[in-house]
């Protein structure tokens, strides 16, 4: 738990703030007017702050529900994301958050009810069409559940809105909130994977592949729709061996017939994010590899990327039907 909690003045008596400050009485409390006074100043070092990130309790004011970036969906007609948190407890070197934010502190927006209100408006505006809401875009949906109670809260909300789908995207094995709730057909729990050797090198503080697979199996047995996200694909020597091994490991345990979806995404970062991250981690092997700039995005050279996508797609389709496979490749 963070040893510092920043609190926006206006929400110091919000029930979730009172609950958190009661549960962590030893954390130093620092009051601010708006969270961005702490989070946004330019002269901050994300890498240094990752050693001891603080928690910022804030109230989201606008932009509660946003359209997903191109290529992000898994088959739904209307796709949106919402972020109750900014930043993640894990420290994955490929993560765009390091390049997007100046601070590694966790921002938790406590006004969940305002998110719900906007989600309802979005569902209403879509008429009879299904809407998908992705929650793990700017954070891990489950990793700080003990602190946020986010999943526990939103499961009740989505249980009453069967036309709306929620994707919880995570690498966390803390699934008590899901264990203690009846499985919902409109809530998909999606786990991200890279092969263990790559995970060990790049996904710091993340539970092992083996543990994540075990948790996925348990969730599947409990009736939760589960999904697999092989995103981003990371290039390395003998990547074919490592990815083949990962797919074999995952599909040996999961019931392929009951997997909701499998997606595949290449490693891509907007140039400005890449520049920020590579300045923070000049000693990182990921950024020493072959990378190219194409239409404002830094990625593997096209031939590498295509080769990896083709290889992984072929391997995945040996385990699951094409109808549930979604290569997330923005044009």
């Amino acid at each position, binding site marked *: 738990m963070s040893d510092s909690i920043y609190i926006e003045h206006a929400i110091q008596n919000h029930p979730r703030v009172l609950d958190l400050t009661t549960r962590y009485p030893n954390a130093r409390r*620092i009051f601010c007017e708006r969270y961005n006074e702490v989070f946004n100043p330019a*002269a901050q070092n994300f890498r*240094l702050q990752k050693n001891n990130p603080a928690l910022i309790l804030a109230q989201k004011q606008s932009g509660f529900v946003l359209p997903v970036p191109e290529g992000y969906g898994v088959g739904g007609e209307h796709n949106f994301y919402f972020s109750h948190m900014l930043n993640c407890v894990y420290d994955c070197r490929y993560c765009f958050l390091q390049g997007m934010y100046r*601070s590694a*502190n966790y921002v938790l927006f406590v006004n969940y009810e305002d998110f719900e209100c906007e989600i309802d408006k979005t569902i209403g505006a879509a008429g009879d069409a299904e809407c998908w809401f992705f929650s793990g875009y700017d954070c891990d949906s489950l990793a700080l559940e003990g602190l946020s109670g986010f999943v526990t809260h939103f499961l009740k909300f989505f249980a009453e809105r069967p036309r709306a789908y929620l994707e919880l995207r995570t690498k966390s094995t803390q699934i008590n909130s899901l264990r203690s709730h009846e499985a919902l057909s409109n809530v998909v729990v999606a786990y991200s994977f890279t092969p263990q*050797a790559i995970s060990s090198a790049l996904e710091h503080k993340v539970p092992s592949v083996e543990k994540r697979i075990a948790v996925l199996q348990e969730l599947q047995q409990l009736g939760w729709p589960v999904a697999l996200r092989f995103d981003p694909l990371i290039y390395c020597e003998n990547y074919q061996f490592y990815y083949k091994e990962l797919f074999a490991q995952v599909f040996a345990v999961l019931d392929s017939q009951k997997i909701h979806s499998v997606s595949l995404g290449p490693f891509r970062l907007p140039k400005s994010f890449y520049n920020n991250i590579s300045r923070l981690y000049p000693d990182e092997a990921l950024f*020493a590899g072959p990378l190219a700039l194409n239409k404002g995005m830094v990625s593997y050279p096209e031939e590498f990327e295509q080769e990896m996508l083709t290889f992984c797609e072929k391997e995945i389709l040996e385990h699951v039907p094409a109808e549930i496979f979604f290569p997330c490749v923005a044009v």
Partner: protein
Amino acid sequence: MSLYFVTALKAEAAALIDHYRLKARTPKGLFPVYESNTEAHACALVVSGIGKPAAAAATAYLHSLMGEPRDAVWVNVGIAGHHTREVGELVIANKVTDAATQRSWYPPQVLKHTLSTEALITVDRPETDYPKPVMYDMEAAGFYSIASKCSSMEFVQSCKIISDNQQSPADDINRDYVKRLLENNINILADFVKRLEQYATEWRRINAMPEAYDHFVQQWHFTVTQQNILKTQLRRWQVLLPDQVCDISAYKSCRNASEVLSSLGDMLDKRPVKFGM
């Protein structure tokens, strides 16, 4: 490593001058400066005088005098008043607010430590009523207005020693008393500063220019853009070929910087990425 202190009073500076073995810089400039300069460690202290404008001016002066160092540790050390905190306690400021403008700075607390932290309000006139449960001083906001532009915020901190409270009013403060407060806390303060310096040193090590860089730029003319590409390629070299020295003689057939960069890039692109497997 570079470490810079800003204090308002000579009495606040005395214990630091003694501890870090600083010598008065001559000839005297706008503000009194004390320094100790070895190849590995540059340390300097400026005495600003009382008040926010003086603290800002002295910080800018020291920054300029020291050659505008990057990623240096900047620490404002001084006394502060507080409603209830015990006199003599060392407290790290976790928020600094300029009472006149209401602008605030939030020094990131990246160090895990057991020292007390508290918000600090910088006032233009001495505050003897302590209306809020925070520290009061007359310089920190001036220091932050400049120091926050000189280095990453994690390396810019304000450390205050409580000199007065409701039981011990500010009227009783004199030079010897301030000196004693600082002397009594110098070891704790130095330990905190040392840990900040360790972070800064590690950051500098990570960002150090690859050794071969100077050899390349002496041999060929690189434009500014090409210099940046060269730095990137040499850093890739360090990661992909950690046991192999980048020998400039391997590129002697290159006619210009462009050919050097091409050659380096092509070679590095062919190196396998292994992630320690």
